[in-house]
């Protein structure tokens, strides 16, 4: 398929979009911000017959809260997330993660639905969504289902999304006042970089810095995002101080299964899982103290 031969249609509503998606006998693909799609088209990897352009489908671009649940439309951009007072207050780890995506240009164009759908092991918003217990609403012309994000992503670039389905909603639980989160990323430089390792942490803390519940999710260290269950269970061992942080961080390398690639070796990635967890917990406690 040559780029010049590819068609593009721009549905004006969700129902029209779902109708287009249900058409069989042709190869089509959704395109929103295009920060992944355009690159892959250029590389020759994604050459559908038709692009279904949903960039301006504004009914899928929103951030709302209702009864301790936050609903995010898949076409919400990273910048929308960063500037949302609601998310700043009640989903701090997601705001942190969105800030670390690429740079301003990509944050303006790229959408959270796209970041999820691309299912890159290095996708920056994914670990944040994992620790926030995100669920996804997948809709086709005739069906609707809601599944946890862990079940959505199967491997690099692979998801359970069917040809005729699209992500129509992201649901996360609102953080309570005693919950706090943080996202840490190690890339080859500060901006415009793909994660070597990243980690999202979300803790429920008592007044005396005891952790009631904690979630830790690593990115870029396995085919999908990895929850660090052993580390999580150690969080509730006592007051979170420098020593406990070091001890938890020490075992993080056991939780991850990284590969070596052009960006880093597997050994370094293992070491960095520990380093980022240590740095993240330290900074998170500092942030808690300052609040």
């Amino acid at each position, binding site marked *: 398929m*040559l*780029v*010049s031969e590819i068609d593009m249609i721009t549905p004006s509503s969700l129902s029209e979009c779902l109708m287009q998606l249900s058409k069989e006998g042709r190869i089509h693909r959704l395109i929103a911000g295009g920060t992944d799609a355009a690159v892959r088209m250029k590389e020759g990897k994604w050459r559908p017959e038709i692009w279904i352009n949903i960039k301006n489908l504004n009914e899928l671009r929103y951030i709302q809260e209702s009864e301790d649940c936050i609903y995010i439309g898949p076409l919400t951009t990273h910048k929308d997330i960063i500037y949302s007072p609601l998310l700043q207050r009640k989903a701090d780890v997601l705001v942190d993660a969105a800030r670390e995506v690429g*740079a301003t240009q990509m944050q303006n164009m790229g959408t959270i639905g796209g970041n999820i759908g691309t299912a890159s092991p290095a996708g920056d918003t994914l670990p944040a969504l994992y620790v926030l217990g995100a669920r996804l609403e997948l809709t086709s012309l005739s069906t609707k289902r809601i599944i946890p994000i862990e079940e959505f992503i199967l491997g690099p670039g692979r998801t359970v999304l069917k040809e005729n389905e699209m992500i129509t909603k992201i649901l996360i639980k609102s953080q309570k006042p005693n919950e706090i989160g943080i996202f840490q990323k*190690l890339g*080859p*430089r*500060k*901006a*415009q*970089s*793909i994660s*070597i390792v990243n980690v999202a942490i979300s803790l429920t803390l008592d007044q005396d810095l005891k952790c009631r519940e904690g979630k830790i999710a690593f990115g870029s260290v396995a085919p999908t995002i990895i929850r660090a269950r052993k580390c999580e269970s150690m969080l509730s061992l006592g007051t979170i101080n420098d020593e406990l942080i070091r001890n938890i961080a020490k075992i993080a390398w056991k939780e991850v299964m990284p590969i070596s690639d*052009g*960006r*880093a*070796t597997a050994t*370094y990635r293992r*070491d*960095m899982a520990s*380093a*980022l967890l*240590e*740095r993240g917990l*330290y*900074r998170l406690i500092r942030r808690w103290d300052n609040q």
Partner: protein
Amino acid sequence: MNTKWVGKRVKRIDGPEKVTGELKYMTDYHFDNMVWGKVLRSEYPHAKINSIDIEAAKNLPGVICVLTHKDIPGFNGFGIVVPDQPVLCSDVVRCTGDAVALVAAETLEIAEQALSLIKVDYEPLEVVADAEYALRDSAPKLHPDGNLHSHVKINNGNIEKAFEEADIIVENTFYSPRQMHAFIETEGGWGVMDDEGFLTIRCPGQYAYRDRMQIARSLAYNPERIRVISSPIGGAFGGKDEITVQIYLSLLALHTKGRPVKIHLSREESVIAGIKRHPFKVQMKTAAKKDGTLLANQVKAIGDTGAYASLGGAVIALAIEHSCGPYKIPNVDLEGFCVYTNNGIAGAFRGFGVNQVCMGIETHMDMIAEKLGMDPIELRKKNVYHQGEVSSVGHIVKSSVGTYKTLETAENCELWKNREKYKSEVSEPWKKRGVSVATSFHGIGMGIGLPDYGAASIELLPDGTFLVGVGCEEIGGGNSTAYAQIAAEMLNCDISNIKIVQGDTQKTLDGGTVTASRSTYTGGRAVAAAAPRMTELLIQTAAEMLNLDSSQIDLKPNHISAHGEIIPYKSIYKYLYNHHRATRVEGHFYLPKEKEEIKGSGGAPHHLYGYLTHVVMVEVDTLTGETEVLRVVSIPDAGKVINPQGLEGQTEGGAVMGIGYTLYEDVLIENGYHKTRNFTDYIIPTIRETPLIETFPVEEPEQSGPFGAKGIGEVVMIPIIAAIMSAIYDATGARIRHLPATPERVFNALKDLKKQKVQSSR
């Protein structure tokens, strides 16, 4: 000296149109009847070509022509020094950047499709992936004379005796990366042939006249029938010194029936086919006395020039000439090898070999200072050569030398004086800070054995303004503004009355390359040589017009006055025009050179050098190995500074490029294939990696330069490399000898350090 323009902060004359995007670079142009050219690159890093079948490609609708080596009318090769690179390969390919065929088509897409239809039957050969392996007898020979392109040697004194007598010896091996120029505008341009067979090539380059010569040689065409326009340029840094696509454009233009043909490399193609900085392995052994006096230096440097020579030989020669730093070391044994491999192609790049050796000698200076318990600046001050003294390579340095002054300035700068305080102010407990200093130098001009001259023209225009023509291109460094300042100063006019034209074989004289930190110095001197001829022309003409003696004529700002009468320059133009007389003058300048070449050195010594000292502060995250450069102080000796604002542009850009070289950048090639494909995995610093950079010039005027100026375009990125390496050591105790100092390398060095400590405490 009281000046109006020179030495003043003059804003860049090409600034507004560049920052607003109004300026069209040559690769920005589109024409209605244009066609697209594409180059078929080799599939293998080393292979024999059995046959090339272009039939299917030729028959694709929309294809205008498909060319191979058979279609080259003249010499099938190019290369600045040794033309060993085929324009289009006929029998063997030696790197994946090699060109095998050319296509012109109605659209870019059709051209790309046509490339995929060209069937080349290759027979893969063993790949030479390592420069040291290339030197073994068992390695396949990539060129008829073998894999050693050049070998240079400088010996002085008695090295064995010196090492025996030394109190202290340090010895290390350093590895440096394959840096990419990473200019915004990738290689590209236009070619068109008119009805009368006159060929015009518009293609960013660093020496239009030499590009024209290389085109003419391959086309077997009269160079007078070729016009090359090579300026303005969206960045070059040495990467457009060699032929890029000029010959491809010319060949295609012969077959497009007068339609303009455009080639513009994608970033991916530029990564593979564009030249890079030579990766070096440098083994260095340096000896000193207890009091810090340097006694001896032994250097063995191997540079990987890739498949073809380009300027590789000159790069190695310059590296060896500079391998002892700006010091006087009496006993030296310096040896450099420039080696062919199948790793792309390396060539000219800002610094030209000095970067790779500076990191060695300056690291050794710090190691010696530490072992002796000496202040690193004191040690350097003790060993630097001064004007009139003998350098390490054994020649008397007659031109100006500012190293000592730059070191004094470093010693007194705020960052160095308060370094202990700054080092204690870490932002988080696991972070560590270090402050270090390094100094270096860089030859100006071509050295011995190559022609080195400048030329400029000044033309009086009908509206009474001046057109200054200089061959040297504006590659982004700001030489156009320097030329305008010098012209305005000497013609006693406002700078807005000066127009500059550069890099055009039809409009400018041959004035040599924009390389070797030479263009402000050389072009500036040529303008300064032409200007008095213009003032003479103005005064003589005015005298003639008024029937006065020329001594009665006064050159005032923007006009001439005589006996109370004012004569605007347009009247002078009109008078000359009406009398069919020339309105254009020329100025020529030969660079001063040393008389005697150091035997076996490949062109050393240079007559002139620019000097620079850097002080840097870094912060290392010991958890991850990330290094952040927090502050840079750049202290150049550029002679008299023509434009402080322009100098800062150079010192700031150079510092950031040096940070990239030290911490981030490397084009990775494995077994001849590029692992680095584009800017996704080639990491250059962004504004977030850009620290506070201060510039404190030390002006050590150079007699031979325009208004006392020297060149500075390259040394601005050199000592910072060693300074960052030492600052990492100062912060953490870990020595990095293999660049770039990525977080992983720094982290592993810290890990090794911990292991050593554990072992030694047992």
